[in-house]
Every structure is written in structure tokens, then in C-alpha cells.
């Protein structure tokens, strides 16, 4: 009897040790190669960097709250979610921000969700979309960010519920949900559509709010772009697929108008977080707005995600 107990204890302890070992092995930020590719050399294109800064909506989260300058990227915005409160970090070229980062470190942060200190970022930072961006574009974006005003002051830490507070655990989440594939247009795709697809799926990270999420907080691919509950509070983010419950019936010009001025076809004006999105899309080129509109109209039509 005593032997049996001892055996059970030994087996349990061994399994426990293996589990801990396995957890650390599987959650090692170095396990995945995403974002470790060579950064192309050559001249940094600051104008392209600014376009990507607008397309990516960096300022919507990283700009210091309660002031009007979108280029004042001190961070500190609190995102209240079901997992707890995320606090957006400083993205300015200050020692409290990204001063001293190499371009390679920036690319890895954006595409692999790993910080220069080798820690996982939480996917509240939408690297699941930014992973589609090319290293050359990220080099330009990094170059643009480094030209901005340094803002001192680090944001407070996130305040999350267990088990979400275990940052290392994000490694498991990434194994399941971060494929790390850069965007590649299907062969023969119209160049305008391809540009739109890149902007929407990559820097624009539209799906991050306009899709429902599963119990683990990952986008439900079967309902991608079909709308979903607001991840930051009450309300519902609309379906942006060309279905009758979404933007079916909208013309390309009407979508372009929304991205340029915020007016819907009913002459409502978009608000919520979309107001800041329009602040950015209104600064894009007319061609880029047209490309986004063309791609949205080419999405598979899906019925709106059921509201609870």
C-alpha cells in the first residue's frame, strides 16, 4: 500500500516536472522564427513610413491620452478588457520608449510579438495582423518613428487577471494563433486589390476589432470581418463584409467617403474608436482608400455575428 502511494507520488512529481519543463520549452520566445528575417538594407523611405504609421493607426493607441497631438507617443492609454487592464507602452524615441532599438528588434516586435528583452507581448498589441507586413515597410515605419519627438515616462504595467497575468503563457497562444506568414498576394490578383488586402490585413488590422473572438481571445476565422462585440467595452463593432447585414449595397465610392470624411451613406458620422481610424485613413492617399474599399467589397459576404 505504502509502495503504491510512493509510486504514485513519484509519477505525479515526474509528470509535474515534465509539465513545467514542457511549458517553458513551448513558450520560449525564441522557439518561433517569426520576425527574425533579414531586414533589407537601403535608404529608409520616411514618406512610406508615415503612410504606414497612418495605415497602422499607431497613434490611436500609443498617443498620450488627453492631448491632441497624434505624434506625441508617450503611451499610457488604459484598455479595459475581459482579461484585465492593458496599458499601452511608450512608442516614442525616448529611453522609456523605443530609443536604442535596432530595426531588427522593431521588426521582431511587430511581426513576432517579442520585445527586445525577449519577452512575449500580449496580443492586445495586434501583431497577429502586423505579422503580414514586409520587413522593408517595417524598416521605413521604424525610421519614421525615430524622427518623432521623444516623450519621457513609462506607462504603468498591465493589470491582468490570472492566468492571463502569466506573460510567458502567451507563447502557447502564439503556437496556436500566430502563423507568422507575411502577406503574399495570390498570383494574378489585381494590383489595386492586392494593395487593399495588404493594408486591411496587415497594417490596418481591421479584423482585430471587426471580428468576433473565441474563448481564448483569438479571431474566429469563420466570421472574420463579420463584426463582433467591442473588445473595449459595451457596443458592437459592425460587419464590414459585403453582406446585407454589413456593407452590402455600399458602393466603392461610399466606402471611400467614409474613410475620407467619416460620413456613412446615411450621412451618419462614425464615432467610437472608428473616429480615430478615420483621422488616419483621411491622411492616406486617395488610391490607398480606393484600394481598401475595393478589397472590402471583394471579401466573402458573411452574416453579422449574432449579438448577445
Amino acid at each position, binding site marked *: 500500500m505504502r509502495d503504491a502511494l510512493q509510486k504514485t507520488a513519484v509519477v505525479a512529481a515526474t509528470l509535474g516536472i515534465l509539465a513545467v519543463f514542457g511549458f517553458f520549452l513551448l513558450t520560449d520566445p525564441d522557439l518561433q522564427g517569426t520576425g527574425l528575417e533579414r531586414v533589407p538594407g537601403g535608404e529608409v523611405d520616411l514618406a512610406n513610413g508615415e503612410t504606414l504609421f497612418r495605415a497602422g493607426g499607431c497613434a490611436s493607441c500609443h498617443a498620450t491620452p488627453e492631448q491632441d497631438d497624434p505624434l506625441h507617443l508617450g503611451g499610457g492609454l488604459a484598455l479595459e478588457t475581459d482579461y484585465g487592464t492593458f496599458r499601452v507602452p511608450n512608442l516614442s524615441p525616448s529611453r522609456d520608449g523605443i530609443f536604442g532599438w535596432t530595426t531588427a528588434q522593431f521588426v521582431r516586435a511587430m511581426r513576432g510579438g517579442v520585445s527586445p528583452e525577449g519577452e512575449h507581448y500580449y496580443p492586445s498589441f495586434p501583431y497577429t495582423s502586423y505579422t503580414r507586413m514586409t520587413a522593408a515597410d517595417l524598416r521605413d515605419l521604424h525610421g519614421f518613428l525615430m524622427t518623432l519627438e521623444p516623450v519621457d515616462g513609462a506607462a504603468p504595467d498591465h493589470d491582468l487577471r490570472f492566468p492571463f497575468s502569466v506573460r510567458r503563457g502567451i507563447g502557447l497562444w502564439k503556437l496556436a494563433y500566430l502563423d507568422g506568414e507575411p502577406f503574399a498576394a495570390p498570383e494574378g490578383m489585381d494590383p489595386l486589390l492586392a494593395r487593399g488586402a495588404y493594408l486591411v490585413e496587415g497594417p490596418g488590422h481591421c479584423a482585430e476589432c471587426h471580428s468576433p473572438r473565441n474563448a481564448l481571445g483569438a479571431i474566429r476565422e469563420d466570421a472574420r470581418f463579420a463584426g463582433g462585440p*467591442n473588445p473595449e467595452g*459595451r457596443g458592437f463593432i*459592425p460587419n464590414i463584409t459585403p453582406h446585407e447585414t454589413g456593407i452590402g449595397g455600399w458602393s466603392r465610392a461610399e466606402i471611400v467617403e467614409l474613410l475620407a470624411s*467619416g460620413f456613412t451613406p446615411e*450621412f*451618419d*458620422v*462614425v*464615432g*467610437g474608436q472608428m473616429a480615430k481610424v478615420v483621422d488616419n485613413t483621411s491622411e492616406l492617399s486617395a488610391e490607398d482608400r480606393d484600394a481598401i474599399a475595393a478589397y472590402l467589397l471583394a471579401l466573402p459576404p458573411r452574416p453579422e455575428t449574432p449579438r448577445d
Partner: protein
Amino acid sequence: MTLRPTRIAYVTGLAVALAAPAALAPVLFAASALAQGEPIAARQEIMKGVGNATRTGVQMIRGEAPFDLDTARETFAVYIDASERMPGLFPEGTETGGDTKAAPAIWEDKEGFDALFVEFGERAAAGLEATTDQASFQAALGTATQSCRTCHEQFRLDN
């Protein structure tokens, strides 16, 4: 609902400002009756009216409809009317229901919410006065509709 005051009312800028609300009186009466029973429906109806007036205005700016000075000024009359009636249509108990998209922030910061309508009304009144042709109308409409974005960003759910 049509909001077309008589041409005669627009003799001078001042006359316009005075006459527009008077011309709207029957509409106001009907809407206030509606408001007592159904604040949510009433405020949605007002916002729809604002959207329709804006559509007409933008179509004239874009040249999709011929420019008409009375119609242009009417846009601001609709805005002024909305700015006066909206703040009173959010009593306690109308936070939810009836497909409302009103954000809880309205009741948490009613003063800030009301202040935006005061600003909207002031911008619209200034627009009413400043509008003499298509160019001045375009500028004034641009300023007034900034209020839409500001308020929707802070106080409305669902983009």
C-alpha cells in the same frame, strides 16, 4: 417631415435666425409630444433628420444638387433645433432599450455631453449667419459637422 420655412422669412440674416425656429414650431410641437412618451425614438428621429439635412447639404456642395441658399440655411436650422432638443431626451431610465446606441458616458458626464450640443448649436447659428453662397456654406458646414464626430466618438456605442 419637411422643414421648409417660407422664402419671405429669409430677408436678412437676423430675420432668418428669428424666423427659422418659428417656422419649425409645428414640428417641434409634434416632436415634443413624441418625446414625452418615447425619448429613445425621439432622439433617433432627430438624428435621422440631422443626417438627412446633412445629405442635402453635402449634395449641394458636391454639385450633385443645384445650390439653393434657402435650403443651405435650412440645414443649420435643423442643426439648431436638434442641439436644443437633444440634451433633454436622455432622462434616467433611457440608458438601454429600443436599439439605443447611447453610451453610458452620457449619464456619467451629462455636463460634457450637453456642452457639446451647446457648441454644436453655436456653430450652426454662426453657419446660418455666414452662409451667403456655396463656398461660405461649405466652410460653415465643415465646421458644424465636426461636432458630429466629437460627440459620436465620446458618447455613442457602435461606431
